[in-house]
């Protein structure tokens, strides 16, 4: 039906584009404005906890949040410097 109408109209429907742009934009803005510093706070606290046990490069701690229609994910990416595996093994023994 939609395709037929599009053929008659001779143009593609722009509403789906509007919808998609809004969804992407709002996912971003909600993350930012819902609580402006949420990611910053999370990052600082995670860094503090992990740093108590492992020496980390603060720049290698990345906290990212994604919001989709069905699921939201919180991704924490911490790069552990080489050599830490050994000290961890020592600490555990």
């Amino acid at each position, binding site marked *: 039906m*939609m395709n037929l*109408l*599009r053929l008659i*109209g001779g143009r*593609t*429907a*722009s*509403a*789906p584009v*509007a*919808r998609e*742009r*809004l*969804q992407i*934009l*709002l996912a971003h*803005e*909600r993350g930012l*404005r*819902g609580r402006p510093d949420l990611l910053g706070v999370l990052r600082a606290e995670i860094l503090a906890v992990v740093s108590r046990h492992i020496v980390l490069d603060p720049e290698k701690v990345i906290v990212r949040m994604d919001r989709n229609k069905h699921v939201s994910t919180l991704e924490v990416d911490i790069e552990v410097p080489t050599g830490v595996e050994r000290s961890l093994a020592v600490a555990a023994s």
Partner: protein
Amino acid sequence: MAKVLVVTSGKGGVGKTTSTAALGAALAQMGEKVVVIDFDVGLRNLDLAMGAERRIVFDLINVVQGVAKLSQALIRDKRLENLWLLPASATRDKDALTDEGVGNIIAELRNSYDWILCDSPAGVERGALLAMRYADEAVIVTNPEVSSVRDSDRIIRMLDSKTVKAERGEQIEKHMLITRYDSARALRGEMLSIEDILEILATPLLGIIPESQDVLRASNVGSPVTLNNAASAPARAYSDAVRRLMGETVTMTVPVESKGLMNRFFGRRAA
């Protein structure tokens, strides 16, 4: 018990003032005692929508500053005896409005009205904040257009965090009012659909007001559209919305223009 309802949107020009006047008049037509308050200090317009622009002596700022009593600033509608207007100041600086002053006025109005409708200024600044500050419920006016939907999203988050009710940990009741809706264009995929907007903003729908020449016509003559032409499509849509506000279950439809033959030919030019 009195209900304080803010009509807000973030974006300007989507129909806040038109909707405040139409909803206020429709509530009064149903026998409720209603006051509509213009919070757009410096750019007042609700007086025009209500056709009361030449009857203003005192305004909201005068009351806040203690220059006039609330009863002196309230203007009774000439058509409906249970409808009142509290106008904004046309000249004063918007900073003259204080949180405390607004709180006192709303508290006083709660004693003698069933509905207090606050017409918010555009934007997300102080004026918009003060308009929503003491509200129990909110009508978020949105056009089926990306920037309007985005601003509504922002306003919804303000309602959930910056109102007195939200600060008390209570939920402010929110309603979406979609205005300037053109079902033919939405069907052709040229305009965001109702489903799209509701899904994106996740807020219950109060009503769909069709794009209509009756809205401009009513504005031209200074009469809320629900009073000016109660049988028109937008007036019926506003009346349905008001019945929903009052707790009735009304089937959601998009009222359409019932155009006569003459209207079909001359409607466009005559408006």
